[in-house]
């Protein structure tokens, strides 16, 4: 193997992407992944720190130097196994984790140059294993007779299910939608996270022995208390934030105006982009405005382009610096021709006689003092209003707590915004009921929800084995 000095001279390997002109005509994945050669080269850049900061930077504590070393040595299947020791969804995390804010942020190579492309390597190992058809199913502990109900088959729920089944618990996931995956199937578009990858990761959990009951909305179909009465020893609530926020401005209920949740669910979960082959319709607007600056806004606006929009706008009330979206996603959107209307905010929608949106009135903003989030808050500029022609609008300004579980689970403490109050380890005001992910934190990331699932797995195991 090359010397350390030689290895650090290897440049960070670029990952090939679909050409922007081509990719806006399809829903195929944009980044194409590393070849084996590229992966090995990239893996060799890792200097195998004695005290790796990257592991601490990972909410699910992946042995990053460990799996990267195996890639460098050409043991790709071994690398995938290593990943799965702590992470049940590596192919997902390799794609959608904000590595630049986590593991890669603390990589020592990043101090002088570019950090090791940990996310791309994670994706490579997981994809290699899946494509080789050698999905490794680790041995699980013998059944310990305890049963856990997991509510919600999103990132938090899938993670806790994977961790607890390995410890010998019987795990059943209850999912309200008809497919498992939560935001991974209804929210994140195919071009960023192909659904067959989510399916493969869910299938892996099934192989481990996790039962998944879809079309089962807890709170209505059965309550949390009924699950406990049925003999589940603990319940984990990973139901997501899952209720859209609108801005309550005039005309917002006109036809053609969607919440991002609806727009993306139609396109991703229901495959409306393949209408009429699939039965769910979606508006194919020519002038589409997406309100917001987060990842969900980027996913929506890039979906609009692929649905044939001539003009796809991001309307955001601050500047690019304050945008919560990953830089990579903003960059992808720019490459694809999305028009960014920054320091701009909608104030009213105007419709035609059929009630369909035709125009939106927007207002220019300037940045004032920093607000509670530390970002400079936007201040409207008087007299700066003007009209834009739009025929489809997607409101992507955030989500709030879905009330179904809170309103049907007596004694479960909520905060004033309706989120479940939970400790670090997921414990709630009710014994035996744990919660994690967006329903506790509000809208956050896939990996943070997975971290919460992991913490609750540990806490439930302690609770049930230690009699705490």
């Amino acid at each position: 193997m090359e010397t350390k000095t030689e290895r650090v001279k290897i440049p960070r390997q670029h990952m090939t992407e679909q050409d922007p002109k081509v990719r806006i005509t399809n829903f195929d994945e944009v980044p194409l992944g590393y070849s084996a050669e590229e992966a090995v080269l990239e893996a060799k850049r890792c200097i195998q720190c004695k005290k790796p900061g990257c592991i601490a930077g990972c909410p699910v504590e992946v042995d990053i130097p460990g799996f990267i070393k195996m890639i460098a040595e050409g043991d790709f299947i071994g690398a995938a196994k290593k990943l799965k020791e702590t992470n049940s969804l590596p192919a997902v995390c390799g794609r959608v984790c904000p590595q630049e804010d986590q593991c890669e942020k603390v990589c020592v190579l990043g101090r002088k140059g570019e950090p090791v492309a940990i996310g791309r390597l994670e994706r490579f190992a997981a994809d290699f294993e899946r494509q080789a058809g050698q999905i490794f199913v680790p041995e699980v502990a013998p059944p310990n007779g305890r049963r856990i109900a997991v509510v919600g088959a999103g990132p938090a729920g899938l993670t806790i299910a994977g961790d607890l089944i390995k410890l010998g618990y019987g795990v059943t996931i209850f999912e309200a939608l008809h497919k498992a995956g939560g935001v991974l199937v209804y929210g994140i578009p195919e071009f960023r996270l192909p659904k067959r990858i989510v399916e493969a990761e869910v299938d892996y959990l099934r192989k481990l022995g996790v039962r998944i009951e879809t079309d089962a909305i807890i709170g209505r179909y059965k309550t949390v208390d009924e699950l406990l009465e049925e003999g589940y020893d603990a319940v984990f609530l990973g139901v997501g934030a899952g209720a859209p926020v609108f801005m309550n401005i005039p005309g917002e209920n006109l036809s053609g105006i969607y919440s991002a949740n609806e727009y993306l669910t139609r396109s991703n979960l229901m495959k409306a982009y393949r209408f009429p082959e699939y039965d769910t319709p979606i508006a194919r607007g020519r002038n589409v405005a997406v309100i917001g600056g987060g990842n969900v806004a980027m996913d929506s606006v890039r979906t609009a382009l692929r649905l044939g929009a001539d003009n796809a706008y991001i309307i955001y009330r601050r500047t690019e610096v304050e945008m919560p979206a990953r830089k990579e996603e903003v960059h992808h959107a720019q490459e694809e021709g999305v028009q960014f209307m920054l320091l701009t905010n909608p104030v009213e929608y105007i419709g035609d006689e059929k009630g369909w949106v035709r125009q939106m009135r927007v207002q220019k903003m300037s940045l004032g003092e920093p607000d509670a989030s530390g970002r400079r808050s936007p201040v409207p500029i008087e007299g700066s209003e003007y009209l834009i022609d739009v025929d489809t609008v997607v409101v992507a300004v955030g989500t709030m707590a879905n009330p179904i579980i809170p309103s049907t689970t007596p004694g479960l403490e909520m905060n004033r915004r309706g989120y479940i109050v939970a400790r670090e380890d997921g414990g709630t005001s009710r014994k035996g009921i744990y919660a994690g992910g967006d329903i506790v934190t509000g809208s956050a990331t896939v990996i943070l929800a997975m971290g919460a699932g992991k913490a609750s797995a540990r806490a439930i195991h302690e609770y049930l084995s230690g009699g705490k």
Partner: protein
Amino acid sequence: MRKKKRGGFLNEIIEKQDLSENIVKLVISSPTVAKKRKAGQFVVLMVDERGERIPLTIVDSDPEKGTITLILQVAGKTTALLAALKPGDRIEHLLGPLGNPTEIENFGQVVCVGGGVGVGVAYPIVKALKNAGNRVVTIIGARTKAMLILEEELRQVSDKLIVATDDGSYGVHGFVSAVLQDLIDRGERIDRVYAIGPVPMMRVICNVTKPKAVPTIVSLNAIMVDATGMCGACRVSVGGKTRFTCVDGPEFDGHDVDFDLLTKRLRMYDDQEKRSLEKYRCECHGN
């Protein structure tokens, strides 16, 4: 493999009956929903993996047999697919019970008005109100006699049943709203009205009850996707506030509902729905 439960496989069609030319009754195996559901609640179903999710009110259930009853009118591709199912066939996905149950109390004398396929939605409400001790007057209507549904069933659970047909082929000649107007004009004491049917009918009923401020509950049939409060497709304006039909409804105070908005939003996908149905019919005939 889905477990064989009493009464059939999960989501299996146990019984199918044509109630009129394009109104179909389906009895479906769904044991948990059958046990849990209350009057006024609905299910969302997907006929197959490529299907859309549509809401349908639960008309009745048999917790012993583990079945629920749905009544639907063929209007688009999904309802056409449902109407083409036979006993033994299975619906791919069925989720429920959803929505808030009807608020049931002993109000005194109540009038339940059902129009068209909405008569099916009215049935469980009439039954629950009757069981709660109300005197229930039920008014049902259809365009013509052949399209009238559940007459006998409703007669059994109502204190009085009045039938109206638009063409006068059966019962009172005219609209259900005129029958209600007549009751009000005669000074009949009415403590509450329930109106379930096509949007124009519900709107007219609300106009009829408004002058005397008779509390009027309507059950709305907005377009839905997930139907769990996640997407907002079903948003309606009630008393100037945006509400979600799926989790805040489906029943609302009719005097506060913006029926104009509801009508327009229900037409949002008219073109696509037509295209979808035509494509389906062509493919069917092609075979």
